[in-house]
């Protein structure tokens, strides 16, 4: 009844254009979430749905698990985890050259305020290169983005 929404989540990760292969990005979003419970019967039966399925990835003071330490994402995994968890929105923002998810990515990559407009436009102009296929992984997206930045005179300093 309550669909375990891992499939929905995986789909949401993927529908943007790419499946965020958890192993590929190193750190997947380990948390399973509840499905929207759109059916009639589950709603009557379950008055509230504030439950998560057994998973302590984001457990506070839980020690080191995957790419989290005591529940917070380790600094090395921040970028890949954000990208892997937000592929569909990131793709949409890049295609427009604007948006909150793209803005956050720019911050995570350390793009300075003065360069943001250039960065945003570059992602739109090179959208085909960054999201090269509908099977692209988060790791590939970041790699492709890196190539785009490296080739841009103004943005090359943000390339790894």
């Amino acid at each position, binding site marked *: 009844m309550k669909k375990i929404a891992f499939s*929905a989540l995986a789909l*949401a990760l993927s529908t943007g254009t790419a499946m965020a292969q958890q192993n590929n990005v190193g750190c997947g979003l380990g*948390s399973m979430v509840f499905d929207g419970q759109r059916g009639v019967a589950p709603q009557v039966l379950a*008055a*509230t749905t504030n439950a*998560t399925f057994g998973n302590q990835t984001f457990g506070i003071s839980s020690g080191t698990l995957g790419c989290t330490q005591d529940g917070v994402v380790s600094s090395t995994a921040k970028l890949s985890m954000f990208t892997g968890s937000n592929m569909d929105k990131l793709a949409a923002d890049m295609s*427009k050259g604007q948006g909150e*998810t793209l803005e956050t990515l720019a911050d995570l990559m350390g793009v300075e305020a003065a360069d943001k407009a250039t960065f945003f436009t570059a992602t739109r102009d090179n959208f085909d290169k960054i999201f090269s296929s509908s099977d692209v992984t988060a790791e590939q997206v970041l790699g492709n983005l890196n190539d785009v930045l490296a080739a841009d005179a103004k943005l090359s300093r943000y390339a790894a």
Partner: protein
Amino acid sequence: MRTRLFIAFTLLLCALPASADYLHELQAAARKAGLARTGEWLALGHWRPNLLRAGHTSLADAPAFFNAPGGKTDPQAELDATLAAFFVQGEETPTWQHPQCRFIARYSWLKERLHFEATRLPEKACTRFENWYAAIAPRQLTLVFPAAYMNNPSSMFGHTLLRVDTSEQSDGTRLFSYALNYAAETNDTNGMVFAVKGLLGGYPGYFTITPYYAKVKEYNDLENRDLWEYELAFTPAEIRRLLEHAWELGQVNFDYFFFDENCSYQLLALLDVARPGHHLAERFPAWAIPSDTVRAVLEEEGLLTRVQFRPALATRIRHQVTVLGDEHGALARTVAETPERSGEILQGMASVQAAQVLDLAYDYLQYRAADEDLPREYVAPRALALLRARSALPTAAAPVPRPPAVRPDQGHGTARVVLGTGARDGIGFTELRLRPAYHDLVDPQSGYSEGAQINFFDIAARWYPGENDHELRWFRFVDIVSLSPRDAFFQPLSWRFTAALERRAIASDELPFSISAGVGGAWQLRPRLLGFALAELDILAEDDLPDGYAVGAGPLLGLYATPTDRLTLLAGARARRYTGLWTHEAEAFLQAGYELRRDLAARVELTSTHLEDDQLFEGGVSLHWYF
């Protein structure tokens, strides 16, 4: 070498009695100051006064949360044992925390109150906590309230979580912060098991800390719930205290109860630790409805600094359709289906408009993917084709919906007392109704999701002064209605469900147990006017019925309107034929509610019932007070 060992050994011997002395000194000072009885200490241990006998019991259910064997019921013993634990030898390792770190909020508070002398109680380094704290880099607390989701009135009960805004984040990068969330942990997928166990506290509840973007995805995109973000003015010291306490709670479980010890209640308990003297949690002894807890938090003068609205995916789609118009909306649906034809379909259109059509098409595809569980092979290639076409067009911001004029916390209180008078079949009555929660269709609409009703334990009693008689009119355990309009983009079902003991004309005005349900559709006939049609089933159980039960079925047609912000109208007609009785019942009703003040409304209710050849008329006026 031997001398050194000897010295070390004597030092150790000496250290023990000295620290024991200091421990006793601290314990005595704590007793003298009555620390174990203070609100701060009781909040830190989540102790609540016992209902019937003297003393306290903690809501925490993990033995590891207590240092004293009887700590769950003995705040004083726990305080003594906690102080003793602070003297434990040893340094933090990746798998072991010193009690000073494990109970860091208690340590900070006791240190401040008892003025620990570092020479006599050496302070330990809490590297894991400090790293965690530095990674979160807290600056501000934001209370986040996901509003009800489309076609799911039970979600009106809602949820609350706490966002810890980081000092690195700007307005544009709020996704980046962390959310403190309290939720039941379960692997049960059976809805019935889930509901019953949840009501009885059968699941452990845990606090977790999750990147906020994961929560936005969960609520905004998958569940289609608008998010309200209430930024709160807590001081840096209060925020530090809250996070220290969250750290203590990390591995601690509580029994999760849907109604009382739920997410919202636990967040209040956390805020009580941040700002002692608030006693927010105490105000919800019986049940904690998330929107009520939001109201309680915001009551504090000057605490709310700003409110942000984050519209859900479905809300954004509806808004884009409104801006673009039906014709372009239809194009967007076609383009979402066949993006390879987008060039031809959008040919000749101004590029700003073409961009908006593509944006809508993409959002709609995302919505369908989650809603219909569409396979990835269907969605991914279409999504990519849409975005490729989009990237060739100039940037234009997609139209963003404005927040509703009235916020959820500004809506009426969820408990209701009704005093009314009227006549049934010519006999006058006075009526009193009580409803602990939550909202019905005719209640003032501001701040609530339109077309959603959920009532719990609505009870009505009547006095007939002329007859010198009184009766229980109904006891509706649960009464849910969901009217969601169908259109070209969304095709939700509308439905209702009621379980009640209720006097019914069809059962000779006896008090049968009834389960009544309906399913159908609703349509937006005009702005502020919904029409709906449901097929209903009505099951009655009562000893005086011919077989002890009766089953009725038939249609319900109705209109629901909010002509002004204060006025709500509900009208309908239904007919049902009953097996077992082989008779039928027809009913027409009209209800009008008018909001006088935020927490006061007037209502007129008229019902005409036809039973075979009998006709029965009932009318009444009433005052509804919300709190």
